[in-house]
C-alpha cells in the first residue's frame, strides 16, 4: 500500500541548471500537491510526458528523495522518518540503477539478500525460482557486464525481488527493452499483482499503460490532472482509447495551441 499525500518537490537550481533550462528562476517545482493511493493487488500507472514529475514522484516513494512538502507512507512506514523500513518493503527499478557489472547475477542476488537479512535457505530457493522464471539460470555465474541488455535487465529485476517486497516501483518498465523482454517484464508484473503486491509504474507509452495498469494517474507539469480506471477515464473524457483521453486532458490543461 502506497499513500502519497499532497506531495510537493521543489529543486533548487544551480546557475548551470538555470542555463540548461533557460530560466532565471532559482527553483523548479517538479511535483506539486500530488496525492494518490496504490493498493495491494493493483498496478497503478503514472502517465505523463517527459519531465512531468513521474520519476521524481517514484524516487520520493523509494526514499531516494525527500519531499519538500507532503507525506508518503509505504506499508504504514513514513519514507522520511522510517526510510530503512520502507526500503525493506520496496523494490525500485529503473534503467538508471544497475547491478555492479563486475559480479555475476548469482553473487549480486546473494549480496542484496544479505543486506536484506534473508536466511540462506530462503535465499537459495528464491534464487532458483526467479532465475528459472526469467531464464537466467544458465547465465547466473557470468559477469553481468558479459550479459545482453535484456538479460541484464532481467537479472536486475530478479535481484531487486530478492526480499520478496510488498511494493514494486518501476520507472519506465519496458524502456530500452526488446519486445520479447518487455513482454516477459509486463507479464511478470501482472503475476506479481495477482499475488497481491502493490505495483506502481511510470510510463509515457499509452499502449503499455492501457494494457498493464488497473488504475492510471495522469501527471502534467508536476500536477495530477486525472485519475481512474481505464474505463472510467475513457468515459470521463469521452475518448476511444487512452491516448485520445490523455490528449483531451492535456489540451484542457495546457490549452489547445500548446500541442503540435
Amino acid at each position: 500500500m502506497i499513500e502519497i499525500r499532497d506531495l510537493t518537490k521543489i529543486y533548487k537550481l544551480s546557475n548551470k541548471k538555470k542555463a540548461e533550462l533557460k530560466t532565471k528562476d532559482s527553483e523548479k517545482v517538479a511535483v506539486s500537491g500530488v496525492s494518490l493511493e496504490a493498493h495491494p493487488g493493483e498496478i497503478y500507472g503514472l502517465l505523463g510526458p517527459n519531465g512531468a514529475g513521474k520519476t521524481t514522484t517514484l524516487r520520493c516513494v523509494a526514499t531516494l528523495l525527500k519531499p519538500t512538502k507532503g507525506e508518503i507512507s509505504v506499508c504504514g512506514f513514513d519514507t522520511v522518518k522510517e526510510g530503512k523500513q520502507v526500503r525493506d518493503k520496496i523494490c525500485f527499478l529503473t534503467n538508471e540503477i544497475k547491478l555492479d557489472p563486475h559480479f555475476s547475477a548469482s553473487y549480486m542476488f546473494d549480496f542484496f539478500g544479505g543486506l536484506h537479512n534473508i536466511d540462506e535457505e530462503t535465499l537459495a530457493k528464491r534464487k532458483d525460482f526467479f532465475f528459472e522464471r526469467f531464464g537466467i539460470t544458465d547465465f547466473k555465474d557470468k559477469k553481468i557486464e558479459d550479459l545482453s541488455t535484456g538479460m541484464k535487465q532481467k537479472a536486475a529485476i530478479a535481484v531487486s525481488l530478492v526480499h520478496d517486497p510488498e511494493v514494486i516501483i518501476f520507472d519506465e518498465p519496458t524502456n530500452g527493452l526488446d519486445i520479447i523482454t518487455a513482454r516477459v517484464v509486463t507479464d511478470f508484473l501482472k503475476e506479481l499483482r495477482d499475488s497481491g503486491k502493490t505495483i506502481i509504474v511510470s510510463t509515457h507509452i499509452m499502449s503499455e499503460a492501457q494494457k498493464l495498469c488497473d488504475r492510471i494517474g495522469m501527471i502534467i507539469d508536476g500536477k495530477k490532472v486525472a485519475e481512474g480506471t481505464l474505463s472510467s477515464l475513457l468515459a470521463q473524457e469521452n475518448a476511444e482509447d487512452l491516448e485520445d483521453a490523455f490528449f483531451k486532458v492535456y489540451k484542457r490543461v495546457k490549452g489547445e495551441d500548446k500541442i503540435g
Partner: protein
Amino acid sequence: MKGARRIIKKELARVFKDKKLIFTMFIMPAILMFAIYGLIGKLIASANNDIIEHKSAVTIVNAPEDFKQVIEATGYRLMSDVSYSDEAGYESRKTDIENEVINGQTDLLVCFDKNFEADYKAYEKRGDKIPGINIFYNSTENYSQQAYNVFNRSVITPYRETLQQARLGDLEKLEVFGINEQLLEKESKKDTQFLSMMLPYLLVIMLFSSAMGITVDAIAGEKERGTLSSMLLAPISRSEIVVGKLVSLSISSTLSAFVYCVSMIFAMPMMMQGMGGEVNFSFISVSSALMLLAIILLMNLLFVSLISLLSIVAKDSKTASTLVSPVYIVVVMAGVMTMFSSGAEVATWKYAIPVYGNALVIQQICSGEVVMSGFLASVAGLVVMIAVIIGLTTKAFNSEKIMFNA
C-alpha cells in the same frame, strides 16, 4: 554495521577475484620496483665502471725528467695514454689542445713552467720564484674530472713529496701535528640519510597513488554506472555504505602500498649497491615498525576518504580524476618539503599537519629518533582530519543534489 561488513566483503571480492586488478595492484608494483631500482643501480654502476676503466688521454707539456720517472714509477702510464710535448710544439697547437679538452678529446692537459726545473733548483729564500704547473681539465666531462682526480692523487702528490724530500731531507719536519679522526655515530643512524630523505616522500606517493587507483572507480565510477544507487535502496543507512566503502578501499590500497614498500625495501639495496652506498634498515624495531604502521594505515584512510569525498562530489570518473590531481600535487609537495629539512627541532603542532607532519614522523622513525609527542600529534591530526572528511562524505551520500543531481 552488518550491512557495512557485507559491503566490505563484496568490495574486497571485487578486487581479489579480478585477476587484472590483482596483477595491477599487487604484482606489477613489485615487478616495477625491482625493475626500476635494479636498472638504476645497474646503470649507475656501469657508468661508474666505465669512468674508472676509461684510459685517460693526458698531454704533458715541458715535463721535467724526474717527473717522467715518477710517471713510470707510479705505474700511471698503465691507466692513461700519456703524450709528452715540448714548449715549441705546445705553443703552435695551444688553442687546438685546449679545444680538445673542452670538446672531450683530451681529458687532461698539464703544462709545466718553461724553466720549472731550474726555478725549483734556484729557490733559496722566501720571495724567490716558485715554479708552477698549469692543469687544464673539463669538470663537465666525467672522464676529464676523473683524469684530474687520479692525476692529482697518483702523480702530483708523489712528485711533490719527492721534490720536498729532495729539498728538505726530512719530510716529518713539515708535519707539525697529526690528526686522528674517529667517527662516532649511532649504529642505527648510519647510512640512514638516504632512506630518511626518500622514504617519507616515496611512501606518500605510493599510498596516494594506490588509493587513487581504486577509489575513483569504486565511488565515482559506481555513481556513473548507476550501481551505487542500487546500494542506496538497500535497507541500510548511508553511513554504513560509507564505512563499508572506506574500510574495504583502505584495506586494498594499504595492501597495495605494502607490496610497494616491501618491494622497495628489497629493491633499494640493488640501487644503492650500484651507487656504492648502503641502506640501513636497522631502525626497524618492533616499536618503530608499529608506529610506522599506525601512520601508514591512518594516512591511507585519510587519502581514501579524501579521494572518496572528491569522487562522490564529482559527477563521473573523469571529473573525479580532474579534482583529485591537484590534491595529489599538494600531497606530493608536502612529502617533498620534508626531504630537505635540516634536522632542527620542529614545533609539536607542525606534526599535526596532515601529510607534512606524518612525513616528518616517518623521517624520524627512519633515522631512529622519533619524538613521541610529535608522533602523538601526528596521529591526532590524522584522526581529526579523517573524522571531518568521513562526516562530509556521509553528508555527500545523503545529499540529493550530489547523488541524483536533484
